[in-house]
Structure formats: C-alpha cells, structure tokens
C-alpha cells in the first residue's frame, strides 16, 4: 500500500461556521509528514476523523489500507496516537498506565517501554496527574512508541514544552523511525522542528488543504525576488505569487512559491529584470503562504 493515510473528498461540519470541504490528503508510507496550519484551521479535527473519533459527512478515509471508521478496531492496533491534550487517567500511575496499554496491543514491546521509562527519567510509581507537562508528553509518546505501530499520529506532541524535553521526545521518535520503517503524521506549530524532520509538508487553513508537497520541493520553490521593471499584471505566471510589494526606490520585492530557475526567462520575457533571488526558510514561506491565501480569500489583491 503506497499511502499510509488516504483521504478523498472529505466533508465535515461542526456548528454553523466550521466546515471541512472536499479535503484530499495523501500520506506516503514510510514518510514523515508534517501538518501545518493556524489554530482553528481544522488540523485536530482532521486527525480525529482519521482516527475514527469523529464521523465525516461525506468522503472516504483509508488508513493502512482499511476504511475508517468502519475497521477502526483492526486499524488502531497498528496506530500510535499522541493527542493534543493529555487523555490518560490522572489517578493511575505510570506503571499502571503502561501495563494497561500493554494488554491491548498484540505487538507491545515491553523492552522498549522499560528502556524509555529510564531514558525519559520517569518515576514508574508516580501518578499521572502529578507529572509535569513535559513528563506527561513523554509518557504519551512512550506508550505510542511501545505499541510498535506502523503509523504514528502525533497532534502537537512537543508544542509548549521546554527545549530539553522536546529534544528527548524527538530523539526517541527518530530512533524508533530508524529501527522500524513507520509512517509518521505530525501536526505542529514548531515549524523549525518540522523542517529538520519531515520529508513531506502539508498546510491547512480554514478547513482546506492548500499545499501538499515534498518538503524539499516546497522549500526550494519559496523565494524572495527583487525585481525591477515588471508590469502590473503578470499573465500566466508559472509560479505562485504570494506577496508583491514595492521597495523604496528601485523595483519590487516578490515572495513566490513553486519557483524554478528556468522561470527567470519568463520574468525577462515580461521586460523585467531579476536583481536577486533569495532563499526563504519554511517558516517565512509558511507565513507568506497563509497571508496570501487569506488575502485572496477576502477578495483583496496586494498591489
């Protein structure tokens, strides 16, 4: 199966304002797929739909080759999940939570669980409710990893945690990935963390997926160009214009996506001159992309 997760024309509604319409999403098997988007864009809802916690109005969701939510009991045996909010019982101890989880997963790796307890420096006898935020996150990751699933679905697993904890969690996750060829679906606001780890990136905004692309391609294509002498209208531009601003004095600054070096010819063909092409990192690209998306959605066009 080439895609660990496949979503086709998904539609979901909650209340009067929130809606996901016609969502298409494909997570290649074995990839580390980063899921970006502002709060309220529908990321957590999409994750809940993938796991069968919510029911869609229309569309198809296939996880590890089986339909969700129809086959959820079979599929979830191979899926590790770390939710945004701690979902475990505060009155149980670390060891009790581990033992409980172990009973439900046929592929449970007790050795890995024990190794992570010591690596994460967790006290097996401590109540979950008394753990710090970072320790809770570590335990939830531990449980997901010890299940030895083929797919890990992580909803902001390291957001809001201190740098030391983030490193520990990320290292454990990557060690797991290098030992078992698992697929990782990770949603996060920590763009720089995703940048170093993900080979695919998807951006969601307002219930819609606006980008789904290999990380390298996306990053390579996001550039800031300083251009002079360009006409107001750019007909049939092969790239995606995200922002166009006049610089004081000479020329304009363009932020574009999907840029390729060959496109210089197109710009020159307009009678313009490209003075510089600067690479932008993922965070800059992400911000500009969202700004442009919101701008065009509101009916405004930047001058």
């Amino acid at each position, binding site marked *: 199966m080439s895609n660990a997760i496949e979503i086709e024309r998904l539609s979901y509604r909650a209340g009067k304002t929130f809606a996901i319409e016609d969502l298409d999403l494909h997570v290649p098997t*074995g990839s*580390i797929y980063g899921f970006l988007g502002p709060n309220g864009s529908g990321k957590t809802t999409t994750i809940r739909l993938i796991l069968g916690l919510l029911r869609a109005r229309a569309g198809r969701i296939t996880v590890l080759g089986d339909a969700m939510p129809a086959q959820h009991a079979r599929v979830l045996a191979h899926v590790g999940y770390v939710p945004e909010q701690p979902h475990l019982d505060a009155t149980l101890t670390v060891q009790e939570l581990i033992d409980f989880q172990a009973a439900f997963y046929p592929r449970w790796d007790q050795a890995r669980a024990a190794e992570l307890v010591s690596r994460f420096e967790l006290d097996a006898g401590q109540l979950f409710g008394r753990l710090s935020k970072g320790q809770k996150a570590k335990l939830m990751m531990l449980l997901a990893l010890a299940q030895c699933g083929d797919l890990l679905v992580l909803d902001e697993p390291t957001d809001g945690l201190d740098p030391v904890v983030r*490193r520990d969690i*990320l*290292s*454990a996750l*990557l*060690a797991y*990935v*290098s*030992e078992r060829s698992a697929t990782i679906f990770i949603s996060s606001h920590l763009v*720089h*963390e995703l*940048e*170093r*780890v*993900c*080979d695919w990136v998807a951006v969601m905004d307002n219930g819609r997926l606006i980008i789904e692309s290999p990380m*390298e391609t996306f*990053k*390579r294509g996001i550039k800031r160009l300083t251009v002079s002498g360009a006409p107001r209208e750019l007909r049939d531009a092969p790239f995606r214009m995200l922002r166009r601003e006049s610089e004081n004095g000479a020329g304009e600054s363009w932020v574009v996506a999907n840029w390729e070096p060959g496109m210089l010819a197109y710009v020159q063909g307009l009678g313009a001159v490209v003075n*510089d092409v600067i*690479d932008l*990192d*993922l*965070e800059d690209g992400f911000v500009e992309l969202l700004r442009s998306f919101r701008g065009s959605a509101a009916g405004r066009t930047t001058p």
Partner: protein
Amino acid sequence: MFQGVDPRSSIPLYAQIAERIRLAIANGTLSSAASLPSVRQLAAELRINPATVTQAYRELEEQGFVEIRHGAGTFVRELAPGRRARERAQHAAALVRKLLAEARRAGVPLAELQRALESELGVKST
C-alpha cells in the same frame, strides 16, 4: 563535526551532512577504515529524519568515500592521495564563491574585497 547543520538553509540537509563528512575525510579528521555513526544514532542526535542520513551516506558511497556494510555500519574507504587534495581544493573554491556572492549582495566592490583579503592575509603572515 556536525555542529551547525542548518535545516533552514537552502542546501538540503543530506548534502550538508555529506559535505562535512567529505571535508573531514579530506583533512584527515576521519581516517581510513574509521566508522561513521549509525543512521539511528546520527538521526537521533541531530534530530533529523533518518532517511536524510541514509541519503547522505548513500551519496558518499556513490562518490567512493565510504562503504556501507549492511549490519556492520558505514566505513571510510582508503582514498587515493590526490583525491584528498582535490576535495580540499573544491571546498576552498566553494568558500570563495560564497564570499564573492555575499560581497556582491552587500555591494562591496571587488577591488575593496581584494584589499581586505590581502591585509587579512598580510596580518597572518607576519
């Protein structure tokens, strides 16, 4: 050796890693038959995708710098002596290209750059 690998740079991560290993081999930091860190170890340490490390190692193998022995690890190969010198020269050329590009961007004229270079080198040689 891998300090400052920059995921935000436009140079892909695997290329940056491969570059540093090549350099280490060229200037003798990594001697022949030395073993490189395992994919798992390096990925966890640098907190990057293991596939990235694998890609770097594969590129190095294709270029003839290392040998991947399945199950045992990745080892530096014995290099022809001219090879090391060539690598160092290539690295120096890349540094110069970078300097020239930055100077151009900052608007520093070539003549001034040359003067600065000579005075810096002059200081070092006395």
